[in-house]
């Protein structure tokens, strides 16, 4: 079932042990959307994002991301997807710059892009040479966002990306996401910051009990 959609999920079931965290999810995301997943704690938002990122296998049903079936062609999807979960994925013994450098090397991005990303997230200059282990919660979050920026992904999956960021950081993040979408990317984010993310999102989806309740515009 090839559609132009970035994400196409049909009756997807994801189980942890014997608990169906996703209880038959059906939804689709069009290119250029900023989709906001909202719902109570334990609804299944993080699981949904991890599934789209190919981190958690689907037990039943089908899921296509960027036109590839997640079960068979996951590897073709991965390098085009950027994922930010509850953890930052940083190496605490390295400095901010070294962390971002590591990622830009992996994706063959130039050092100038690294510097640009650092500046953008306001962790250039003195901070850039601090061990990540010595950073504050928000500074760490900023660093992992910089890692994400240098990846230039086509599909951004963000789990509570605003958590820990200060006002300025949140505005910056919103700007980055809008810019990414403008340049052809698609964004799905889960968040409890309704006031802010409702303005950011082009569509809001209610997740609860492991399924989509209603998709209101």
């Amino acid at each position, binding site marked *: 079932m090839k559609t132009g959609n970035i994400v196409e999920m049909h009756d997807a079931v994801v189980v942890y042990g014997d608990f169906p965290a996703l209880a038959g999810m059906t939804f689709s995301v069009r290119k250029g959307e900023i989709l906001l997943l909202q719902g109570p704690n334990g609804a299944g938002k993080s699981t949904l994002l991890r599934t789209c990122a190919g981190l958690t296998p689907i037990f039943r049903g089908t899921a296509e991301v960027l036109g590839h079936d997640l079960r068979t062609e996951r590897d073709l999807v991965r390098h085009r997807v950027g994922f930010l979960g509850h953890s930052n994925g*940083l190496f605490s*013994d390295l400095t901010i710059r070294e962390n971002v450098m590591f990622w830009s090397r*992996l*994706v063959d991005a130039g050092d100038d892009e690294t510097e640009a990303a650092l500046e953008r997230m306001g962790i250039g200059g003195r901070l850039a040479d601090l061990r990540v282990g010595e950073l504050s919660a928000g500074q760490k979050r900023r660093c992992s966002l910089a890692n994400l920026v240098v990846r230039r992904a086509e599909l951004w999956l963000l789990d509570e990306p605003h958590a820990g960021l200060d006002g300025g950081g949140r505005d910056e993040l919103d700007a980055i996401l809008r810019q990414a979408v403008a340049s052809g990317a698609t964004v799905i984010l889960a968040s409890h910051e309704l006031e802010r993310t409702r303005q950011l999102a082009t569509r809001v989806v209610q997740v609860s009990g492991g399924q989509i309740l209603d998709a209101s515009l």
Partner: protein
Amino acid sequence: MKSQSTLRIARVVAGKDLQIEFRSHVVINRIVPFAALVMVMFAFALDDDLLLARVAGGLVWLATLFSLFIIVQRSFAIETADGALDALRVAGVNPAGIFLGKALALVVQLFLLEITLIGAAIVLYRVHVEPSSAVLLVTCMFCATLGLAFVGTIFGGLAAGMRGRETLLPLLMLPAIAPVLIGATKATEAAFNTSGMVTSEGWPWVGLLAVFAAVFGVGGLSAFSSLIEE
């Protein structure tokens, strides 16, 4: 092309690991002294010079083995402490590359450790290495190190995602590594000409080590993706 990128990834990953080691000096400042201490303790516990010289080879590799647990644990603690391994997986970074990279970093660190331990054995246990058997010794170290590094990376990656990994890792690794321990011990004893072995008897054992390393190297390269997946 694929393999080329595998090697590039491997280089980046290994570089990162060694950079971290260079920053934190964990192996130099902690594990080497630990291993040396273990050897001293063995010497104490046995306190019998003849006996000691006889089992010197075994003790060197026993000390290496227990340090290996710590090094591997450390090597993957780096990746899992803040979910970096997850990030690498999602980013679709070539798992074979990650495997090679981490293994390579391990090889470097282990080799450093083993040289120290052999040195310690020569000093503490008064074993002699004729120039003729030096080449056997080095080949043995090389093959054994590869084997240990591959097994360590495989099971380190396997345990990485799991709860109670600090206890799971040794249980999984020990049986897999036992052959290396035995083979390396025999070869080293041959190199030391201890426990009635002469140099030439060492080579079959080195062969065993080489086969072992090859098997787990290939196994790791092909299976690592399925290990760190999910």
